[in-house]
């Protein structure tokens, strides 16, 4: 790693100020950023840790019944405390391994928007609101392609608000070495329709599978899931071809719907 200065502000306002400096970079739980720094793929002058900001910690429920997760909340805490949204808690409890879950944060995952990360699927399928120090962004506007989001430089995710669906399930086909999703599908059934978000498959990052949403909104059953989407634009690597991933999208969607009961 190149040398950098480390700071740990105690409030969102102080963190925003620190991030205003040139070459400053946010540090969530560091489970992606620290390995990246070790490979010298990034060289921030200053790392601004969000771990000391109490107002960004924890899981609560707001007046609208939404599950609200502080941006600095680690996966283990979401797994333990988001019981009001079991599919979300289950997803958090199956990210990485226990030691990674004790450090990695929801804000870090969503800000990084790794094309194979789990949380983007939950946020997009739930139509979550991503709250920052400056504004509130709808999930549909937030994800803008692999490792790309609507966040501005120095903008911090302070909270994520998840409307709780009538039924939901996340199916993850794990890449066994990294434990990232080779493909992951999150299905969420709301009163006004079904949302299906897919991670791990597309070169554009997480996406909504609209054909499945339309079919499942009309008939919420595993048999209603359409044929696999086209393989064009799917990720192809040594772990799986584009066609294989496209196939998995349909298989996992069927499993997720079936698991909703």
């Amino acid at each position: 790693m190149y040398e950098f200065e480390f700071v740990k502000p105690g409030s969102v306002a102080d963190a925003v100020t620190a991030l205003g400096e040139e070459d400053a970079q946010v540090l969530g739980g560091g489970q992606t950023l620290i390995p990246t720094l070790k490979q010298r793929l990034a060289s921030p002058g200053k790392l601004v840790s969000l771990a000391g900001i109490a107002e960004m910690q924890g899981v609560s429920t707001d007046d609208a019944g939404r599950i609200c997760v502080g941006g600095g909340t680690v996966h283990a805490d979401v797994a333990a405390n988001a019981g009001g949204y079991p599919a979300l808690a289950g997803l958090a409890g199956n990210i990485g391994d226990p030691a990674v879950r004790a450090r990695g944060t929801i804000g870090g995952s969503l800000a990084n928007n790794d094309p194979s990360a789990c949380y983007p699927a939950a946020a997009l399928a739930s139509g979550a609101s991503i709250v920052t120090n400056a504004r509130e962004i709808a999930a549909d506007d937030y994800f803008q392609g692999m490792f790309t989001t609507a966040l501005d430089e120095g903008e911090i995710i302070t909270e994520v608000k998840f409307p709780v669906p009538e039924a939901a399930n996340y199916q993850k086909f794990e890449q066994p070495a990294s434990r990232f999703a080779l493909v992951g599908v999150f299905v969420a059934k709301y009163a006004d329709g079904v949302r299906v978000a897919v991670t791990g498959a597309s070169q554009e990052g997480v996406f909504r599978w609209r054909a499945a949403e339309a079919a499942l909104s009309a008939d919420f059953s595993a048999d209603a899931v359409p044929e696999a989407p086209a393989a064009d634009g799917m990720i192809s690597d040594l772990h799986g071809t584009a066609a294989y991933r496209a196939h998995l999208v349909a298989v996992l969607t069927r499993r997720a719907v079936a698991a909703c009961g």
Partner: protein
Amino acid sequence: MSQVTMTVNGKEMSGDAEGRTLLSQFLRDTLGLTGTHVGCDTSQCGACVVHVNGQPVKSCTMLAMEAEGADVATIEGQAAPDGTLNTIQQAFQDHHGLQCGFCTPGMVMSAAALLKENPKPSEAEIRDYLEGNICRCTGYHNIVKAILAASGQDVGSIAAE
């Protein structure tokens, strides 16, 4: 350089660290606690697992400065001061839960975290919890047996595979 202070195995310890100093480096090189092993240094293998404020973490993927003021537990603090092994360590010895021993500090610390959270885990729960701990001698079977035994459960039901 600035000074970092943390409580390690119940004792307050301080040392100099750079921003980029990893917790694993700080424990090993600065504090001389070389029981925490660095295997892959890419957060895959889990040999470097220690507890920070009661939670298992990969110390190669946490900065020393992030642990400022924290309560850290390492493998050195597991046995009694007279060297008597704790229940988990003794079970690893009794069930031959190690071959070369390189992964053992991380395995023991992960096992301790598991048993604190789930005092009577099933075999499947143990295997699932150890997902982030790699043993290159492929000794998983006896490690799982040792953890089952340490939890006070019968290990006879696990057939050798």
